[in-house]
């Protein structure tokens, strides 16, 4: 049974077969985003591809299982020569009947006989053992994984695989119920084997737009082909997965004293949760080790990457950028300040209506602010990604009796959004470096944002020169509607402050966050990687 047969891989685009396809200049590896999901990262990927028309791109989409994503949300630019998809899981299989089970037993028996006849242990298994038991995630582990000498059935039913499971049970998760560990072991390693077996998409360089599974695949292909790798992380993958794991109801933590009426107890972290967390951290470290350049968006993220094992000398900060349309729009002119228009403040929430954006806090803040000042709030962005959350937010607006003041207007092109807004509010739980803030700055609109990701340095300034420009809005705590409302009220009452902050934002984006600067930096990076490939090819006999 070949490893490749277990991999669900489908290709769409110019070439259907990644092995024989003409090699692209850059293979962009994305996980769960472009081109099937709209959002900040997808927009950024699209922008980067469009911004380099002289380069050809192959896009590899890593998804969860076939059919999980919908239609493409972006029209692929002409310089995309191939779109390939790799899935971590197969579609659900029908349960086996009696004959099927008997046949499976025979297959497992034959498999074990064949495995027992093997002279040496699988290198992939050895690599997985070093990754999980020894905590290693260096080039040696990558080299072992790149061998791809373990099939999915061998992982599921092989004796040596079961031996690794028992080793993990004894040395890593001695407190975990063995049966739980058994299933978690399969859930962790089966996607890895599918990715290892994916046919290599050949390119002159690889660019992973996250670590995780996409980063692992990029590191593997980079190792196998000898082509250089660059990793760009918008949000820190391992941290984001940790946040998801913390809320995962399929892993239970035990804590002494839960049933006791005391405020003191010693938490005991579930060994299974720790296993998953260390797995995702190891994936990140593998990508960091193999990458020539690690790009991040802000100082905050850089520090997190270093803490997660990224070599500091490889990290470079390349902030996002937006296109400027000239000087500050005329309507933001000082004349406007001297004679402010007699109308309500127009506040915008620009983004997807999903829980991570915490639209509930925005609605509550507007409700509080509406008790003091006249505000017209608009929620601008798609609400089809999480319909139940969108319905909940609409219901909240209705229950608060604010339907005439808070409106859901759906997605709009940026040119139509910011010209009609006085203030942009961002209440997200998690952000990298939000494009929304930069777009608002480009239009001279001040911003109120939560203290997540790079928001603080985008509003208050990063370096000395940046801080000298002055604040371009207010930073609030997460889930603090009163603080957000206070900022809205302050900016609604003080038109001069609003103008001053808007002008500071415009000056900031002009100085530090221009799209041209960002693309120029990536162009230089791509050129350097491609030249490295060419030089190494020329050196070969």
């Amino acid at each position, binding site marked *: 049974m070949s490893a490749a047969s277990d991999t669900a891989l489908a290709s769409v685009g110019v070439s259907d077969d990644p092995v024989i396809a003409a090699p692209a200049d850059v293979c962009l590896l994305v996980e769960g985003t472009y081109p099937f999901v709209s959002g900040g990262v997808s927009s950024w990927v699209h922008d980067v591809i469009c911004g380099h028309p002289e380069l050809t791109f192959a896009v590899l989409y890593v998804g969860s299982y076939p059919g999980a994503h919908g239609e493409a949300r972006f029209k692929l630019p002409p310089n995309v020569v191939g779109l390939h998809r790799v899935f971590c899981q197969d579609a659900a299989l029908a349960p086996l009947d009696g004959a099927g089970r008997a046949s499976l037993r025979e297959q497992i028996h034959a498999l074990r006989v064949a495995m027992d006849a093997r002279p040496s242990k699988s290198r992939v298994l050895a690599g997985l053992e070093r990754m999980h038991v020894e905590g290693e995630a260096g080039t040696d582990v990558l080299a072992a994984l790149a061998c791809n000498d373990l099939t999915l059935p061998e992982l599921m039913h092989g004796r040596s695989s079961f031996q690794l499971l028992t080793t993990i049970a004894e040395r890593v998760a001695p407190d975990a119920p063995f049966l739980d560990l058994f299933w978690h072991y399969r859930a962790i390693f089966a996607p890895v084997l599918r990715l290892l077996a994916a046919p290599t998409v050949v390119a002159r360089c690889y660019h992973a737009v996250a670590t995780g599974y996409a980063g692992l695949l990029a590191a593997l292909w980079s190792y196998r082909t000898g082509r250089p790798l660059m990793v760009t992380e918008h949000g820190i993958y391992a941290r984001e997965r940790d946040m998801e794991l913390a809320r995962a109801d399929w892993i239970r933590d035990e804590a002494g004293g839960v049933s006791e009426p005391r405020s003191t107890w010693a*938490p005991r972290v579930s060994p299974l949760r720790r296993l998953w967390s260390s797995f995702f951290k190891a994936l990140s470290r593998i990508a960091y080790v193999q990458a020539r350049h690690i790009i991040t968006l802000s100082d905050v993220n850089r520090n997190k990457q270093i803490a997660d094992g990224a070599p500091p000398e490889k990290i470079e900060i390349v902030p996002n950028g937006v296109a400027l349309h000239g000087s500050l729009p005329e309507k933001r002119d000082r004349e406007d300040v001297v004679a402010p228009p007699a109308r309500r403040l127009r506040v915008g929430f620009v983004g997807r209506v999903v829980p991570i954006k915490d639209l509930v806090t925005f609605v*509550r803040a507007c409700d509080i602010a509406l008790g003091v000042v006249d505000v017209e709030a608009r929620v601008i962005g798609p609400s089809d990604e999480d319909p139940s959350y969108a319905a909940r937010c609409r219901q909240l607006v209705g229950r608060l009796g604010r339907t005439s003041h808070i409106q859901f207007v759906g997605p709009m092109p940026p040119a139509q959004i910011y010209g009609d807004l006085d203030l942009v509010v961002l209440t997200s739980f998690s952000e990298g470096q939000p494009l929304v803030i930069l777009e608002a700055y480009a239009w001279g609109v001040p911003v109120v944002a939560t203290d997540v990701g790079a928001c603080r340095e985008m509003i208050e300034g990063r370096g000395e020169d940046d801080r000298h420009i002055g604040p371009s809005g207010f930073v609030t705590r997460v889930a603090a509607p009163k603080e957000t409302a206070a900022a809205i009220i302050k900016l609604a009452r003080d038109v001069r402050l609003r103008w001053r902050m808007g002008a500071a934002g415009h000056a900031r984006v002009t100085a530090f966050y221009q799209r041209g600067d960002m693309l120029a930096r990536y162009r230089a990076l791509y050129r350097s990687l491609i030249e490295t490939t060419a030089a190494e090819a020329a050196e070969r006999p």
Partner: protein
Amino acid sequence: MSDPRTSQQEGDPEGVSNPAGADVPAGEAPVVAPRPTRPPVAPWIAVSMADLVGLGLVVGVQEMWTLFAAAGLHLAALLPIAFMRSLSSSEKALAASFVFAFPVLGAPLAVLALEHGNGDLASDLTQAPTALADAVATDFGRLAVALPSCEALTAGTVEERRAIIATLVRRGDADAVALLRWALGASDPDLAVDAALALEEMTVSFDARLAACREALAAAQDGPRDTAALPPPTLPAAEAALAAAELITHAIDVGVADPALVPALAGEARDDYALAGADSTQADAVAIGRTHLELGALRPDTALACIDAALPTAGPEIRPVLLSLREEALLASHALPWEGPSALASYQVRAWSHARRPPPLTARRRLGNLPPPPLSASIRVGPVQVPGAAATRKVRHVGRE
């Protein structure tokens, strides 16, 4: 030390007797049981006599052999103690020690010690409440290894922090919610984000359960009524209404409900309690739930009224609960946040716009016997100027302006 007269009689190996003769487990047996029988005196006299004879020989004869004879008699004085069946082994050891250490005086001293001691050493150990000792040790251990939750949230590792937060979410009581809200203001932004996500999760869970309860209630109210096989629709509807009302009450009580929605949710819960009250078998649950709701919604006077209405018909089991809640409501009615005029404003709106919901007793007391003013009029209560219903948000402090 146990009373020597009461131990080891009637073959009780543990020194625990059962006067009633019932087969009582060791853990439930009384620690000290009276034994009416008198202890034997002859052995003690024999012990003393042996020592006295030896002493007489040594003093009277003053030969070398008398020393050995006196020593032999002194050792022989231990024999009656060894054969005293009324003594436990530890009591025998104690008595023998006295007799051996203090010739002649040893026997009376031993009798005194055994008569007036508190108990047998061995039986004390066996009867000691071991669970209590373990609990104390556990407490010390917990104090030694565990930090208070607040400290652990701020000073613990990321994994510990997330484990605590996950535990708090599962716990879901008022303390847990308060701790999570405290964590929102932490200086560590990651902790604040984790806490915010946890609170969001709890709110989403509450919303989902409330939606399910509403659907169940609607289904119960609109269900088929002409099918004889089905129970009468009033009972399921009452149960569904009680479930919905209790869910809302719990959410308000622990602080999961959105503060801006508390008045609307409380109104919905009141309607549900009214519907649930149609089933007389649920009267006690309705009374308690409604009281909790009014206390959570800062209307202790209404809570008092609910309790006073329920007390005359309350059963003996539920009466202490109601009385306890009444104490709480009484205290709360004197601790209203008068400095926050929003409460007053809401009282006014509800009081004079809905005849079914009278103003709270406290407000009534403070307002005296004033006739209900028209909706647009404002009133002054102490330093607070309460405007009419049309502009209840513009409450102002008179003293400040």
